[in-house]
Every structure is written in C-alpha cells, then in structure tokens.
C-alpha cells in the first residue's frame, strides 16, 4: 500500500506533518507545544513556591476563553462541528487534538488557533480553574495504581523529570493568575511546536491554512532544563488497602536511540502480551494477581523500563520475587518463537493504527518529537523484520537490568534485594 507522508516547516519553526489515509471520511489534527510539566521547573513563582502544576493549570485556563469566545462558546462551536477533542499536559508537552468529519477541519483549527494564540486567561475563571485542577488531584489520591506509578517516576528519574505533570496540591494552592500569565507568555509559543494531521487531508490547503493562522506568531525559544539528582531508589507508600501495588524501573535508552527497538522487543517478551513471561509466571501459573505488565516509557533523552503488579498484601512479596526473578532471567533466554510473537503483535499494531486518524496524527507528532523525522509504515515494518534474537541478546548482555528502582504502595513495605542476579 502506498503511503503519503508530508512535512513542511513554517518560518517561525512550527513543523507541519500530514498523512493521507485512504478509505476514511474523518481527519484528526493534533497540536503539540513544548509547554509540558517540565517547564514548571523553569518558572519560580511570584510567591517563591515551587510551581508543580502550573502547566496543567495554564492548559485548564486557556480553555476558558480565547479570541472572542468564552468557554461555553468554545465548547458549543466544537460540539456543533462534531469535533471530538481533548486537551492534555504531559511532562514534555501541552497538547490539544481533535477528530472530525473532514469538512469541519477549517472550523476546528480556527478555534484551536484562538486557544493557542489568543487565550484571554480571564480573571474570573482563575479560581474555578484552580479548583478543577485540585479536584483532579484529589481524585488521583484515590487511585492506588496511579499513585504507585507517580512514586516510581519520582524515585527513578533525575529531578525534575520525576515530578507529576498534573501538579501537587500544595503548589497549585499557591499559584496565582500572574504565574499563569507568565507561563503562557514564556512557553505557549511556536518554537518546537508540532502540528500533525491525518486522514482525508488536502495537504496544500492545510499548509496554507496553518501559515495563515500561525505564520506570523513570533518564536521565543525555551531554555533547556537542567537535570538534578535522582530520588531514593526504594520507596514504600503506606496505604490502607486490600491490595499492595509494586512497581520497578530501570534505565534504558530513549526512543530516538537506534537500540530502542531491541529494548521494547525485550520488554514485550517480558510483559507485553498474554503469552509474556510476567503474565504467564505471575498470573497464569501462580494466580498471584489480576493485573501485571511491563512496558516502556520514554522522554526525549531519558527512558525507563517499568514492570507493575497489584496483588493482595499477603502475596505481594511473592509477586515481587517472581517479577524480579523474571527480570533477572531475561538476558540470555529469549527464544526465536518469542521474538516472532513480538513481531506479529507489533506489525498488527502498526497496520491497525492506519484505521484511526487520531492514533495516526498522534504517532506522527511523537515520532517527529523524538526523531526529528517520521518513519513510513514500510520502514517501521522493515526495522521490525530486521530484529534478531542475537541482536537483542547482545544488547541485553551489555546492558543487563540492574540498579532497579522499586516502590510499593499498601499496608506493609516489601523486601527488595540491592541488586538482582540472573
């Protein structure tokens, strides 16, 4: 199947990415600005407090008035155009995205351009926006698996990469409208911005439209983040619950490293599908838990392999022990059948992504952010085909999973050996 990938760059540095997908009526557009939670660390607040949550609060307030529209009008106009849209803030990016029938794209991008370029950041909406962020933070307090992952990231990554992009209540309480306005003027800008569109697209029309909406937006480059210390490598969060949640992490190369596909393949063998080792050993053979998995989490320059399980307090130690044994056993033990299954699953995933314009637009933007280019489906499939057991094993032999970060959340702390051995 012939694939049509397009790229263009505006003078102010905005990257435009496009892919025509045959057989769909819809189009999805996705805006990614380098205005994520990491920027909180670049912003000492007016009151001298840390600003963890400022990017999230800014994102929330930006939706509450833009151009001539108030918050209700923004939502009414997007709903009336049948746009399924979402806004989010991750560690590296602030994003806004929408999926719609192709003819509604001009209406939707005009509204998104207003939100990005002409947010009114209204005074009377500041307190409700702050309360909304605080409500969300209170909600995450009740989600033990989420809290476990937050604790893991904090313990594993060097500061400030381990901070929660959704914020911390005490910091959010101390933020002011002036902080939000300073954040918006410093970080909501076109340098490093990516706009991806996928589906039934008219590329020349899209480029012209983006030029018209964003071409005269002056860039103000963002200073780089300085990495600080890592947290303590062992952490227990006391929580009165029936289940204990355990998570471990170790450092692996980021997505843009040519070796990263070997890492993700090895992690898929460990905990990717229902035939994976963790699922098989922890859940299927021993019935120790309902949810257990391993996966890969990447920033541009840092990445982690993460394994997780939630289980009854009494069986948590055994669960952790089995997980650690499987992680330790991984180097030198991957079979050709396992790799074939990893390839089959990855190939299906890549091909099926072509059926979702939203998934495709998001994937284009992510690839550009990490690689500075977009790979074709054919190229991705070729890379998969080229993977060999020997290649993965050779990498694992040089980089065995040692120096683990381990966290637990539940009634009692667990015992974690200092190092794991194969």
């Amino acid at each position, binding site marked *: 199947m012939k694939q049509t990938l397009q790229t263009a760059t505006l003078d102010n540095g905005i990257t435009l990415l496009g892919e025509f997908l045959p057989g769909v009526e819809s189009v999805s557009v996705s805006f990614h600005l380098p205005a994520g939670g990491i920027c909180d660390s670049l912003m000492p607040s007016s009151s001298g407090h840390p600003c963890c949550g400022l990017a999230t609060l800014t994102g929330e307030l930006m939706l509450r008035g833009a151009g001539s529209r108030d918050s209700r009008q923004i939502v009414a106009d997007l*709903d009336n155009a049948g746009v399924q849209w979402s806004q989010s803030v991750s560690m590296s990016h602030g994003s806004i995205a929408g999926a719609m029938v192709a003819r509604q794209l001009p209406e939707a991008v005009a509204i998104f351009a207003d939100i990005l370029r002409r947010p009114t950041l209204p005074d009377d909406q500041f307190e409700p926006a702050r309360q*909304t962020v605080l409500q969300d933070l209170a909600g995450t307090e*009740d989600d033990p698996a989420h809290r476990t992952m937050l604790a893991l990231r904090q313990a594993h990554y060097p500061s400030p990469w381990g901070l929660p992009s959704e914020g911390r209540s005490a910091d959010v309480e101390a933020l002011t409208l002036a902080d939000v306005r300073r954040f918006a003027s410093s970080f909501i800008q076109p340098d490093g911005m990516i706009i991806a569109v996928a589906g039934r697209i008219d590329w020349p029309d899209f480029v012209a439209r983006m030029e018209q909406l964003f071409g005269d937006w002056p860039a103000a480059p963002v200073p780089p983040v300085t990495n600080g210390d890592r947290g303590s490598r062992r952490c227990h969060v006391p929580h009165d619950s029936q*289940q204990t949640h355990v998570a471990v992490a170790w450092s692996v190369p980021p997505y843009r490293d040519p070796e990263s596909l070997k890492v993700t393949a090895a992690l898929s063998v460990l905990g990717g*599908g229902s035939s994976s080792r963790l699922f098989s050993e922890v859940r299927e053979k021993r019935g120790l838990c309902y949810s257990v998995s391993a996966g890969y989490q990447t920033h541009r320059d840092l990445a982690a392999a993460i394994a997780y399980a939630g289980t009854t307090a009494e069986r948590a130690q055994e669960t952790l022990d089995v997980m650690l044994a499987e992680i330790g056993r991984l180097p030198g033990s991957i079979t050709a059948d396992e790799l074939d299954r990893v390839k089959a699953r990855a190939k299906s995933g890549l091909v*099926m992504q072509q059926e979702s314009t939203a998934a495709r637009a998001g994937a284009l933007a992510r690839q550009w952010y990490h690689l500075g280019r977009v790979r074709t489906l054919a190229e991705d499939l070729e890379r998969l085909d080229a993977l060999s057991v020997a290649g993965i094993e050779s990498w694992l032999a040089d980089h065995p999973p040692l120096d683990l970060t381990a966290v637990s959340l539940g009634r009692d702390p667990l015992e974690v050996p200092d190092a794991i051995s194969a």
Partner: protein
Amino acid sequence: MQFRHERLPCGLDVIAEIHDAAHSASLGFFVKTGARDETDAVSGVSHFLEHMVFKGTDRLSAEEINLRFDAMGASANAFTSEEDTVYYAAVLPERQHEAVELLAAIMRPALRAEDFDTEKQVILEEIRMYDDQPPFGADDRCRAAFFGSHPLARSVLGTVESIGLLPVEAMREYHRRRYAPGNLVLAASGAVDFAALVESARRLCGDWEPLTAGDRTAAFQAATAAPPVELITREQAALEYAVRMSAGPAETDNDRFAAKLLAVILGDESGSRLYWDLVDTGQAEHAACHHHDFLDAGVFVTQLSCEPEDTPGLLGRILDLYAEATGGLTAAEVDQARNKLLGRVVLAGERPRQRLFSVGLEWAHTGRYRSVADDLRTLDGLTRDDLERVLTAWPLAGSAATVLAGPLTTATLTA
C-alpha cells in the same frame, strides 16, 4: 459497508458488517449470558467462566491459547456484563481463519478443576482490586438497591464469598446451558471474508449441542418510593463517590435513542448542564449522567465525586438541574448535543473494533442490524418534543436509588 447474516442448522447466528477498505478484521463470539442469568448459588459465574474460557480445551493448554493469540498478532480479550459475555480478537485480514478457529475452540473449554482453583485466586484479586478503587463498590450496591428482586440487581463480579464457595461442577452445568449455539452470535466487522467465515463456523461449531435457552426477561417495575440512601464508608478516601439510578427507557422502547441524547445534554463528560454547573466551577471532580438500556429495563445513572462534605448539597443541586430541564430544554442545546453525537457515530464507524461491539450486541439483544447510516438517521430525526416526552415519562429527579462511598459516615451525613 455491507451486512451479511446466516443461521447455521445448530442455531448459531453468523453476522458480518463488511468494510473492504478496512485494514483489519474484528471477530467475536457474543454469548447471551451475564450476571442476570445467574442465581445466588452461582453469583459471579459468568465472569469467572469468561476467565476459564482462556484456560484451555481438551486439546489446548492455557499457555498454547495465549501463544497462539499472540503469534497471530491478535488484540484479543473478553468482557462480561449484566447481559453479555463477549470474546473478541482484532487481527490482520489474512489471520481471519486462525482467529475464528481459536475463538471457536475456546468456546468449548475443558474447565479443569486445577485450573479452576488457580483462576479463582485471580478472580478474588480482581474483586479486591475493584474494592480498593472508586467508586468502592457503590455502583454494584446501587444497582442492587434499584433493581431489588429483578435479575439486573446481580453483581457481575460476585463476592469473595460467592466465588470462594463456587464449585466447578456448577460452572460446567452453567456453561452447558448458556453456551449452546442458539445462545451465541459469531460476529465480524471490517475486512471480512464472509463466505470463509460461514464455512469456518460450519466446520468448527456445526456439531455443538443445540439446547434451547429460556426467556431471559422479567417484568420490571421501579419502586415508587426511593430506597434509603446507602453508605459505604472508606475513611481513607480523598473524595466521596455517589451513584444514583432512576428508571429510563428499555432496549425495546424506541425512546432509548432520545434518552441517550437527553443524557448528553444533561450529563455528558464535557459541555453538559452538570458539567457547566458542577465540574467547570471546580465544585466536583466528576459529575455525569448516562443512559443504559437493558433487555427489559433502562436506567439513568448519575455519578458524582466531590469533597465529602459537599456531597449532599451537590446531589440536591443535580436534582434541581434535572427539574429545571423538564420543559426547559432549548433548541440550541438539542442541536449541539445531536451534532456532537453525529460526530461520534461517524468516527466510531471507521473503527472495525468499535463496530464489532455495536453490531454484535445489537444483534444479540434485538436480532436486528443497525448500520451507521441508521444511527445517523435516527439521531437526525429526534426532536426537542421527543426529549421532553422522555423527561416527563421518566422523571430523573423522581424516585431513585442512591449509594455514597467515601469518608462520610451516617453520623456525618445527617449532621
């Protein structure tokens, strides 16, 4: 898109919505069984059985099943609800045959006693996991309070006690009765080869023992007096989680479509009356209203999460919002909600996996096919009068069951 249907002599319905431009095929067995088809003695058996289906057949071990799904690159899973148990796999078109073969094989599981004992531990973990999570069982308790003695009162997961006591023989008997071919639908969507699908089904399922499943429906009459508000106290929780259920149109009622559009206006996750009043203002973490239709009953479910001490006041505010809506819907908000839903229907129509669930469940429940075009036409035809009629016939502010879970205690609630 083209729809095809064929019924095999054993009673199995094979259906497909074929979309040649799709990159994948989604396939699934839709079993017309769920919590409502259980008795006290086997509470939770439908869901437990859903797990056991993956634990092996006479010829295949659990490991081989997992290996084969992963080897074909399938995105395979299953779920159980009050009325349905669904097993599905999304695969590349060239894997259709393999996927059907494996799905059909696991519909006849071995149900070995030793696997049953191991998997029981996994089920108990799943029950504990949900018990630790919002809404801390409030949804199950609310359904039980609302439906009373009706079969829809039953819990899908069952309880630690009911699962602990369940004997494997009871599951085997349940499986024999409920997984008879006439009680199953084999559905497919996307880039499907229908002739090959029917041929596979004939060969793989043709000799399944045909048994007649009885009528599953039961008359439902919502209580005229609301049951007392129930509390599940979780001292450690940060927020209070409220679930409220009141009666709505059933699946057999044409007003089910108007009820869904109404729920979007009242309580969609964003842009609804509840959203602007409670969430946008930062008073609640979450406030939403959904309509669910079942075979013989329907419910409007209201969910609220907020600071514990605000809960009674905000629940009262929600009832005021519902009362204000009666006779007070505007043409603009009906159009906005309609446009929003039209967009959702079109986008969902492009995903074979989403279409599989829509097409399969509709057929399993009504024996009819509804295309994306049918859904769009129905939505286009709805008027404000239709929504007003639903509001009058099913007053959301009226009698309802309410359950709160969180730090509130009886003492703090009445103080």
